[in-house]
């Protein structure tokens, strides 16, 4: 059997994976400001007008706010989770970080936690009552742990 490596096909599949992740076919126009000549100047005439709203829209689109994710989306989430684990592993061996190491590790693990709960457990797409039920238990557990640690760290 002859194995043919088709670079064009590989490129197409990579592009389609990227497009699948963004949820956009990237064939449309770039987003340009909508300011016709006969209208008065916009209130806030900077390049960043509406950028927050636009980023929120983009974030909601990338994180699939309206509906379930697709398998390729889950593969991306799993890839990012693996990369974060690798970063944690590398950070563990960086001696120069000192006291900063523990906060960085905690933030990274919180990020992993949120990604698994939000995307893999579908809390991002699901009814909010589940978020409330799980979140109340998680917050209660975290608060009790922190209070316990503080109380027992105080030495009489």
């Amino acid at each position: 059997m002859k194995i043919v490596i088709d670079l064009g096909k590989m490129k197409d599949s990579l592009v389609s994976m990227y497009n699948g992740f963004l949820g956009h076919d990237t064939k449309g126009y770039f987003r340009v400001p909508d300011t016709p000549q006969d209208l008065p100047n916009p209130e806030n005439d900077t390049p960043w007008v509406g950028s927050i709203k636009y980023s929120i829209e983009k974030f909601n689109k990338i994180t699939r706010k309206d509906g379930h994710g697709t398998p390729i989306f889950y593969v991306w989430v799993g890839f990012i989770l693996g990369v974060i684990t690798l970063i944690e592993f590398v950070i563990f061996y960086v001696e120069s970080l000192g006291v900063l190491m523990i906060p960085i590790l905690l933030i990274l693990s919180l990020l992993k936690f949120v990604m698994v709960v939000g995307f893999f457990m579908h809390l991002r797409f699901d009814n909010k009552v589940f978020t409330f039920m799980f979140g109340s238990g998680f917050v209660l557990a975290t608060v009790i742990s922190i209070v316990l640690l503080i109380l027992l760290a105080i030495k009489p």
Partner: protein
Amino acid sequence: MSNISATEDHYTSTGVDNRKLMMWIFLGSDCLFFGSFISTYLVYRNRSLVGPYPNEILDIPITTVSTFVLLMSSLAMVMGLSYVQQGRQVLGRYWTLATALLGMVFLGFQVFEFTHFAHVGLTPRTNIFGSTFFTMTGFHGAHVTFGVIWLLIFAFSRLASSFRQKMLIFASFLSVIITMAGIMMTETLDVIPHMPFSLAITVTIIGILGTIGSLYLLRVPDTEPEKVSKEEENLELAGLYWHFVDIVWIVIFTVVYLVSAKDGAPLL
């Protein structure tokens, strides 16, 4: 909202599936369960009077690999659920079995770690580090074991309908166990007396061939797609439990392994 229209739910006053709500409440309470173990570990951190101490025995590279294995099992779980929702029985079954397999690999890592600790001299009654560590990771391992059993029973009873395919799923599970036993035999040749190397290799090869063969024979569906996608709600419950086990390990890996791996003898 697509999942609501796809299945025929009974009426509930909350508007959501009662079993799923119960699962989430259970997971919220399980947070408190593991939170108590983790905070106990942290409260008694650095208070062991005799060794071995964490910096002498905790092996970060191996634990990173096992963490990665558990994360990938979570990914396999969500892929399986996604394919079952689409009614694609074969892919859903393969991913579900892959989830159980990766869970078993994780348990293998944990058995290896516990055995190593016991050989070095750390048992639950050696010091306060041993007590808190083994209680926490042991309960987590028990959760993983329960999840593996749940997934295997689910694949056996719900993702196959003909007797032949049920038996093939059972055979693949058995072959994986035979493979693991063969690998263990090759690793412990110096411990077991009169164990020929050829026997250990033969057992491993039989196990690998059995796994590949039974999984190959499972490549055709035996149920209609509509019937498969009805199992979505049931698999989702198992999936929620499995992902919870994963996130508990994410917290344990950071708080117990990475943060406290450099702890030595207490400064009195």
